[in-house]
């Protein structure tokens, strides 16, 4: 690679990296916790959840409960199990009965607790897992700005890892084995950035591409729909199999109770370990009532085992189906894999723990990149004014990023102590804490201090998370293990691990400054 190309790649890598660094750090940090989103929710609520990630029956029972509040006749009803927690998402379409009252012609959306039947709107069932999950695509910034911003961060991250890997291409092997922890600070940062960046490349590449797709798909859809489909969105989504089929509403109520549980049992018996994640009912209570059950085969049986069956309820006949055992549809494969690869949820806790560690390593790669940027500009030939500016930028970046760790640990303790937690509460505690912690570190103007104390405070608070959980809810590990409450246990262990690692780094690994610099 010639000097010109090398320097251009280097420069574009630096500029794109420094521009997205803070947002990307927030995304990776909170994203790492999002691997355990459902666990964090169940931990916060003290719920024991069976590990089968599906809608548990009885569907008839749920529908009966919903029908106490809503007249379901003539509506489309959808029950969705998207996250592995007790709550189901319920969405009710407007009634197609032309004689229906005003209330019944309004659609409704809410979540329902499958055990106690409790109904909650989005704000009141908000919890820490959801908060961190949302923060990882900057969704607290109003739609569509936050998500679009996060999407562009993901995309520029893809650009940054391409230029980054190209910069190191010629020396990728030799640099990989170069680690000079006792050399001067900049070499240390460079070695860490390079080695961990190269190790993390496949992981980060997958997240950059899938993340960009989730958040920026509109950029692709718009030209394809307008140019290719001449604006016919329905046909587009139909072709890509995103639409439900449509069934006419006969407006002839069926007599007797509607029973769909037997249909669900039939499907289960036929498809082995198939997990139903969505039940969509068309024209509830009508003669032309249909039921669509969709889900997936357990991942260890078949990684791409999506399937569905549409059943006419009146006679139980199958109208249409895609058998998951034999499903080799390319469309389903791509759709499924984009999510599986991003969520890392197809190989048990092991893969998710590894993903969490790689995510936090990526955080370190981002910060070491900022440090390289900063240290490389501490040179005599750069005017003092510019250097002061650079130092201040680094100071602010480090303060915002590093304070995230103690603040997140603190928030875990807060939600456990607080008597009631909703969306507003979460916003009112997390963001002010983060702001105050960032400002304190910014005014201290000492990166070494910021680094050390954010790790120490975060580590101590992190170790207090399982203790708080034990004292408040009594869910100590020796209670949760025999009870099989693994969701609760996992979060406790996660913080035990993070707390110990943070303190170990703070007390045993940050002594670099005192060591005598040697030439590397």
């Amino acid at each position, binding site marked *: 690679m010639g000097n010109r190309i090398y320097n251009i790649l280097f420069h*574009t890598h630096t500029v794109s990296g420094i521009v997205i660094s803070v947002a990307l750090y927030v995304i990776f940090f909170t994203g790492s916790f999002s691997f355990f989103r459902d666990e964090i929710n169940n931990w916060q609520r003290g719920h024991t959840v069976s590990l089968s990630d599906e809608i548990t029956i009885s569907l008839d029972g749920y529908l009966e409960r919903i029908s106490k509040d809503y007249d379901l006749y003539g509506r489309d009803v959808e029950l969705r199990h998207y996250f592995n927690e007790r709550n189901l998402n319920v969405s009710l379409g407007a009634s197609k009965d032309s004689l229906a009252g005003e209330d019944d012609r309004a659609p409704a959306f809410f979540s329902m607790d499958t055990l106690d039947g409790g109904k909650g709107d989005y704000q009141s069932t908000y919890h820490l897992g959801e908060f961190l999950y949302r923060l990882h695509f900057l969704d607290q910034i109003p739609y569509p700005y936050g998500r679009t911003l996060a999407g562009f961060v993901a995309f520029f991250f893809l650009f940054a890892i391409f230029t980054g890997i190209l910069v190191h291409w010629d020396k990728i092997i030799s640099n990989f084995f170069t680690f000079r922890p006792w050399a001067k600070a900049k070499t240390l940062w460079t070695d860490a950035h390079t080695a961990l960046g190269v190790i993390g490349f496949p992981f980060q590449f997958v997240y950059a591409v899938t993340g960009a797709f989730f958040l920026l798909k509109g950029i*692709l859809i718009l030209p394809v729909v307008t140019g290719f*489909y001449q604006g016919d969105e329905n046909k587009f989504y139909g072709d890509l199999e995103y639409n439900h089929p449509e069934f006419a509403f006969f407006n002839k109520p069926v007599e007797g109770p509607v029973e769909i549980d037997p249909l669900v049992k039939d499907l289960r018996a036929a498809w082995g370990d198939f997990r139903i994640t969505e039940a969509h009912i068309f024209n509830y209570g009508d003669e032309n009532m249909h039921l669509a059950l969709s889900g997936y085969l357990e991942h260890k049986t078949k990684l791409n085992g999506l399937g569905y069956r549409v059943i006419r309820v009146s006679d139980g006949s199958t109208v249409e189906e895609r058998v998951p055992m034999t499903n080799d549809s390319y469309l389903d494969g791509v759709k499924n894999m984009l999510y599986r690869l991003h969520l890392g949820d197809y190989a048990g806790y092991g893969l998710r723990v590894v993903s969490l560690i790689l995510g936090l390593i990526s955080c370190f790669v981002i910060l070491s990149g900022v440090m390289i940027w900063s240290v490389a500009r501490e040179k005599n030939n750069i005017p003092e004014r510019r250097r002061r500016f650079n130092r201040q930028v680094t100071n602010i970046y480090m303060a915002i990023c590093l304070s995230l760790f103690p603040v997140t640990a603190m928030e875990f303790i807060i939600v456990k102590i607080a008597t009631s937690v909703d969306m507003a509460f979460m916003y009112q505690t997390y963001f002010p804490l983060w702001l105050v912690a960032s400002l304190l570190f910014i005014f201290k103007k000492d990166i070494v201090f910021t680094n050390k104390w954010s790790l120490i405070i975060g580590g101590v608070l992190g170790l207090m998370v399982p203790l708080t959980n034990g004292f408040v809810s009594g869910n100590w590990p020796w209670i949760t293990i025999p009870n099989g409450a693994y969701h609760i246990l996992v979060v406790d262990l996660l913080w035990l691990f993070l707390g110990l690692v943070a303190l170990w780094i703070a007390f045993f690994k940050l002594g670099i400054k005192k060591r005598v610099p040697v030439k590397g």
Partner: protein
Amino acid sequence: MPANNKYLTPSPWQRFAKITAAILGGLMVAVLFHMALASWVDHVAVIMTSTYTAFILWALLMVLAFLGKNGWRTWALYLGISLVLGLIFYWGIQTNPIL
């Protein structure tokens, strides 16, 4: 070791041309490439594939745009390729209409 300035683009207009060619031009070529391909072969499979390949291609075109010496020539190149791809797409959609 910040990048050596003597290899970087000093003129603001050149920088503007390169950055816009990279982001907008790259996007245009990436999207039109997939649309042109989709108009001739199995369009559903190509559109589904573009969910990941379009972003990868776009990012690679971005990298390439910065390597060119003259940003306006990069623009001209990307516009030219877009035009050709647009024609292939137009021809394809007339030959194999999907609606």
